[in-house]
């Protein structure tokens, strides 16, 4: 079975994101970028499936500017076998990405597509679900455990109030949650090997995807600055503040 992993290059999780002066979006010039942490978990899971003999090949795909290839290399250093880069400058909406991934999945014929549950930049949490719908494949989202057995996968999902276990037929789409695994550090020999692994380029147009946005961003603003706390003298005063000042009870 081949595993296709979709990854996204985002602002590094450790960097404080800043809104552009004109409010048109988040500043990304000269900002440190990295692989979306959930995508990293998806890559790690794919590599573990291969190490466990469940997968025969792991292919990583990402759309974005030229530097996206660095992020693909990071995935190859974790242990993925090869990469596919779909060049595109500027933002892509989840639907366009899902269409791109559908076209790639049709070419690659994977038994499993793994994605992060969401990207930490726009927090859309849509691409995996859209991809499953477009392919007509079963989907299991927010996975915290994946067990593959023949042509079905048993997936433990993180849902409100607990865990849910579902079985899905393969091929399927699975989006991964934080607790699925802890991604490894790439070792130096694997970083060196990754430099020699192939990354194919496929144009969006060749995949029949129209990247034109369907949504318009009106304004991006910083969240309001957090005000200081206050001290209360009595329980009665606390209740009063919660009711009348904070309005939470």
């Amino acid at each position, binding site marked *: 079975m081949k595993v296709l992993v979709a990854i996204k290059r985002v602002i590094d999780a450790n960097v404080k994101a800043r809104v552009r002066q004109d409010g048109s979006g988040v500043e990304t010039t000269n900002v440190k970028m990295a692989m979306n942490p959930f995508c990293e978990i998806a890559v790690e899971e794919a590599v573990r499936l291969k190490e466990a003999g469940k997968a025969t090949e792991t292919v990583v795909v990402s759309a974005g500017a030229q530097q996206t290839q660095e992020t693909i290399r990071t995935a190859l*250093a974790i242990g993925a076998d090869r990469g596919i880069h779909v060049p595109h400058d500027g933002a892509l909406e989840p639907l366009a990405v899902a269409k791109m991934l559908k076209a790639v999945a049709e070419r690659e014929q994977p038994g499993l597509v793994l994605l992060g549950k969401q990207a930490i930049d726009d927090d859309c949490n849509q691409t995996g679900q859209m991809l499953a719908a477009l392919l007509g494949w079963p989907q299991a989202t927010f996975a915290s455990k994946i067990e593959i057995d023949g042509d079905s996968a048993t997936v433990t999902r993180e849902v409100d109030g607990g865990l849910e276990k579902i079985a899905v037929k393969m091929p399927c789409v699975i989006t991964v949650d934080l607790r699925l695994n802890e991604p490894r550090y790439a070792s*130096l020999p694997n970083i060196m090997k990754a430099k020699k692994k192939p990354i194919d380029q496929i144009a969006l147009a060749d995949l029949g995807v129209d990247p034109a946005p369907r949504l318009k961003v009106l304004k991006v603003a910083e969240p309001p600055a957090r005000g200081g706390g206050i001290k209360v003298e009595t329980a009665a005063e606390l209740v009063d503040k919660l009711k009348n000042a904070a309005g939470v009870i």
Partner: protein
Amino acid sequence: MSGNFSDIREQIRALCAGFPGAYWREHDRARTYPREFVDALTTGGWLACLIPEAYGGSGLGLREAAAIMEEIQASGCNGAAAHAQMYTMGTILRHGSDAQKTSYLPEIAAGRLRLQAFGVTEPESGTDTLSLRTRAVRDGDHYIVNGSKVWTSRAEHSDLMLLLARTTAREDAPSRTEGLSVFIVDLREARGKGIEIRPIPTMINHATCEVFIDNLRVPAANLIGEEGKGFRYILDGMNAERILIGAECIGDARWFVARAGDYAKTRKVFNRPIGQNQGVQFPIARAYAQMRAAALMVERAAALFDAGERCGEEANLAKLLASEASWEAADTCMQTFGGYGFAEEFDVERKFREARLYRTAPISTNMILSYVAEHVLGLPRSY
């Protein structure tokens, strides 16, 4: 920062994030070897970066090795516990026999064999290496070695040790620089059978030792290269060591500048951040400038070394400038932190003590200046 190698740097930072200040404070307090950190570097293949691929390493150059060491220090960790595992093998690689290379290098690359101790310095001969007194006398298939070494770092945590000993008396040697030989000593066998290792408690947690050698039998097959040429063999290794330690100093300087900057931005006195005062700003800015300038020299020296060109001058200058830049940055950081700089929990005092080492070791600042004066500028020889 010297060089780029962002892929390498990123992974090192991720690895180092698992070894925060508390980890180092604990080992510093107990004066114990940071084994877990060294194991993590070993498992990740980082210490085998200079070993050619044919022997199981990554076959990279000193520039990449410098990036690794710099990033370790800039992350607040201390690579001194393991840096010698990277470069000590260079003497075997460049001057050893095929048999020595094939038997030792793959094991060193895999991390199963630690070669991170080099017995050069003696109580009676510091930088004046040629006056060392440890003698190795040929006896059939063996050499019998007697003498002692001091400041042999990591000897307790090394399986093999390279040993520099005199094989021809000074007066009988064909030239001033001949008569010394390098041997591979298997400490696992030799301890208690001719080798005694005694740790020296020091100001920092550096695992350095005295080594006493009493009728140690070393197989003649463990002689590296030709008898009597040992001094020449260790010289290029010394350049590698100086360049890498220069890179470590750059990393330290980056750590100090970053810590000082962060503290100056957030610490408020008289209702304003102390970093708003130019008296606080300027030393940090100057430390940064000195770090950047020294980093260029480290990079230049590493590039020359990798190109196989002469780099004695640059390696020495790199170590001199980088160790002074890190010391300036250390002092500035200490001053910026005020009283808190002395509190262990901020790590500044520990890093401050550690950074001081490199103005003294592996060669002191004055010895470098004397080298530059005599060999680069042609001034009269002083000793």
